[in-house]
Structure formats: C-alpha cells, structure tokens
C-alpha cells in the first residue's frame, strides 16, 4: 500500500498533513466506483437524480426521495461544511496512528448529503462544527493491485480564504 504522497497545496498557518503508512481500502462496486475513482480527474463524483435533481449518498440504483432510477455520478464543487467531528484517539489500524479527525461534512451542493471523511491540514482538535472545507484526493493502490485498481480517497481540508469558525448553526 506504499504510494508517493500527492502534495496538497500549503495553507498559511495550516498544520502539515502527513499521509499515513496504511489505510483500509474499499473494494469499489459498480455503484461506488465513480465515488472512489473520480479523484483521478480531480473530481468528487456524487450520485445525482435526474428526476428531482437532488444528490444522494451513498450511491445506489434509485433516488430515495422520488424513486427515480435515472441516477448517476456527477461532479460537485468539492466544498463542504463540517456537521460533526470526533478526534479519534484509539489505534484501530496498524499504520494509521491516532489522533486524527473523523468528520461528517455536508456538501455545499446538497447539504443533506453527508460524507464521512478526515479533515486534515489542521490540528485535529481545531476542527469545528461549521468549518468550511474543500476536498482533495489521496491515491492508493490496494495490496497486490495494479494501477487500474487505484482509488482516490476524498479527504477534506479547511478552505484557505474562508478560514474555519464555529458558525451560526
């Protein structure tokens, strides 16, 4: 699972993010492949319903709101807001040492679509509800896999200009 780090642009005053030695990787399904590989082109691909126009997550064969099956991946802006956060301090996975911030972020394009992710580039204790964040991608190759099997994990970091404040929720 060794991979060269994809450099994230540096933010003024931000904590450096060091890519961990290991992560548990998903095995993409026909429905989730776009989500896990959109980062190849720098895109966060979220399923969208062409019947009602809303996004949905996790991806699936039908829209839970209007039940249309005319659904498929579409790029979103990659901007989101932290809805909840925890600093995990328990080691679960060898090669992924705590502490790290696990957050639910709500997409700017569809606030009731939440992604579970890591907010990095900031001290884990500094991540706040209401913090504005943006996506970047961390590529991984599964053990024993080839370049075709690569996946791009969508991680988030504070939006440089907006900064992060505990906003009016």
């Amino acid at each position, binding site marked *: 699972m060794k991979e060269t780090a994809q450099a994230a642009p540096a933010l003024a005053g931000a904590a450096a993010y060091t890519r961990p030695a290991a*992560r*548990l*990787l*998903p*095995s993409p399904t026909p429905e*989730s492949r776009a989500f896990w590989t959109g980062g190849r082109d720098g895109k966060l691909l979220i399923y969208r319903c062409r019947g009602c126009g809303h996004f949905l*997550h*996790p991806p699936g064969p039908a829209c*839970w709101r209007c039940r249309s099956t005319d659904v498929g991946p579409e790029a979103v802006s990659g901007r989101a807001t932290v*809805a*909840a*956060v*925890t*600093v*995990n*301090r*328990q*080691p*679960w*996975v*060898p090669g*992924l040492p*705590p502490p*790290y911030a*696990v*957050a*639910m972020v709500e997409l700017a394009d569809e606030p*009731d*679509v*939440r*992604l*579970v*992710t*890591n907010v990095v580039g900031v001290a884990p204790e500094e991540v706040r*509800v209401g913090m504005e964040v943006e996506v970047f991608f961390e590529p991984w190759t599964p053990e024993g896999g080839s370049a075709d099997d690569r996946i791009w*994990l969508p*991680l988030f970091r504070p939006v440089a200009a907006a900064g992060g404040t*505990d906003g009016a*929720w």
Partner: protein
Amino acid sequence: MSAAGGPFGGKAVITGAGKSQVGRRLGRTGLDLTIEAVTRAIADAGLSVDDIDGIASYPGPGVPDKGFSGADTHQVRNALGLRSRWYLSAMETAGQIGPAIEACMAVTLGLANHVVVFRSVWESTAQATAGGRASVLFGGGELPPHLEYVAPFGALSAVNWLAMPAQRYMHDFGLTREQLGAIALNARHNATLNPDAIYRTPLTMQDYLSARMISEPLCLYDCDVPCDGATAVVISRREAAAGLPRHPLTVESVGTGMFERATWDQRADLTTMAAHDAAATLWERTSLSPADVDVAQLYDGFSFLTVMWLEALGFCEHGRVGEFIEGGERIALTGSLPLNTSGGQLSGGRLHGMGFLHEACVQLWGEGGDRQVPGSPEIAVVGVGGGPVGGAMLLSTR
C-alpha cells in the same frame, strides 16, 4: 388511545428469565453459555424443555464479527432437540430485542405457546484470541458493505460513528461531559450492588473526567465492556401461562418504527436516531405514557445512546437531557426514574440489548436484591440499540 391491552391485547406475557455466567475471557463457547441461559430461563418459567415450542434470537448466522454471535437458533434447537412450531432469527429488526417482539406476535397469533428468546456473545474471549481489534471488527480481507464509506478514514468502530452525533449534540444543546458522566457513574454505582456485574469498584467523577479518550467526546467510561455471556427470556401466550409459578409480565407495547434510511450518517437530524422512531411507535400503541414508567432499562453501548433514549422516550424535551441527568439523582435507584439498575452494559457487561430486558423482568418481579428499586415497580420500559438500530418494549405487572 389505542385499544386496552396494547397491540397484543394482553395475550403476550413474559414468564421466565435466565442469564448464564457473565465474565471476561471465560474461554467457554458461545453455544455453551447460550444453553446455560436458555435452560435457566425455561426452568425459571416453571417449564420443561419439551414445553418450549418456539425459539427466536438476534442476530442469527452469517455475522463475521468474532464473538458477536454466540449461537444461532438452529444450533440451540439441535443441541436441545427442540420440536419447534415457530422459530426465527433476525438482525434487520427492531434492535437486539426485535426477536422478542416477534415472539410476542407469534404467541398472540397462537403460532406457539412458549417461545424462548436469547442473545449470546463471547466478544471478550474473541478479542483475547483474535489478531487485533480490526480483525475482530470485520475479520480482515475485503471490507463489508457497512464499512465501505467509513473504514478508509479510520472510523472503524461504532464509537467513532456515535462520537460525531454526540459532539454535535453537545455543540447544539450544551450537554457537558460532567452531565454525560452521570450515566456512567449511575451504571457503576448500580453495578456495585449487582454480584453478576463485571466492573464493581466505585467510580468517581474525577475518574471519569480524567479517563483516556477513545473518540472525543467519548472516553473509556462512555464505552461498554465486552464480555462473554448469554441472556434469555420465555415469552408465553397468556392462556398457556396459567398455573406457572411467576406472575406473568404483560407486554403492553412495542416500539418498532424506523422512518428514515438505515445509516449512521445520513439521518436528517443528526441529534436524533432510530430510537426516536421506535419510541414514537411504542407510545402510539398504548394508553400508557412516560409518566407511568417506574423503571427504565435503556441501551448504553455508549453513554450517549442512553441520552438518546431518555429524550426519544419523552422523559425530557429534545435537547434538555443534560439538566435531566445532571447530578444523577433522578436516575438513581431512589430517583423518579431509576435507570439501568444492573449496571447496564457500561459496568455490567455488553450482553447486547437482551440484558436490559432481563433486568426489567428482575425488577418487576422484585428480585433485584441490593439493587432492587424500592416501592414495587409496576411499569418498566426497555429501549435498545443505537444509530440506525432501535427497538423498545413496555412491560407491566398488570
């Protein structure tokens, strides 16, 4: 107001309860513990194994997590040579007590006379023998579907998934760690009075506040303790229970609702859970109300889940649970709403839901010993599960 007697018309009753040896790293098999609990429950009901014509359990076969399921229904049937007129195991149901609710339906419809319902775990022994925590959680290899969108980000455990709504609830409503700690301290105090509990040494608020963080804001004492053990109850058709030694406990209502998608992170309101839907359906099926409840057994796989159940069941307003539990007087054995009287899963051991139903029966039968709620409690509520898992039962001595 629904019809008198609730959804089962008073026909579904609990006639016996049993518990196996409960402990850490017992080294016994899950089936061995299960048989001990099941046969004790049957004997407690004054029945013989041959009287049992139904069996039900959570979760049934096929769960990869080591120690999560001590035995499935057929293993128990085979071990005891049961002749079953009705049987079931289920995981996609109203929490870990869902099969007990199904058993109420079975006896009400006359599909069976006496159903033994069990839940068994051997998670403590599993963790001692498996290759690390991650391998216990999913057995290694390919990630199962429920972990696909969380495990890559190191959110491997339910403690991570529930710490986030707990943090959001604290952010929105000002619940403090000291207030949340009242749940853990209450459980520990009750456990000191329960000879079967795992952790029986007193716990102070200072101990709680200085404990190691697992996933903020949840510390070690906000998490339940994995154990080995099994619990069982016998649910009977009221007519078939005539002449049995115990006063039958009436199942007044059950909470089985689930109004949103079953996920840990997409519910519209992050500060509510499936517990709220289960609780809503519990009360719409009975003329009883929260004010009638004498004792509450509310799931504490994590302390924050008990908080969710307290407000879901209407014991306090949404967002106001902090002041309700602060100081712990209301939820103490001598308080207005005695809570988790056996020590819950936090201090009693993670019997995974069914331990709460067992303890509700013990309290209504007045057999709690040193931890017995004074004044002969007549109505008990049980709420189990967290996140997208939730089920509730309301029991009475009526």
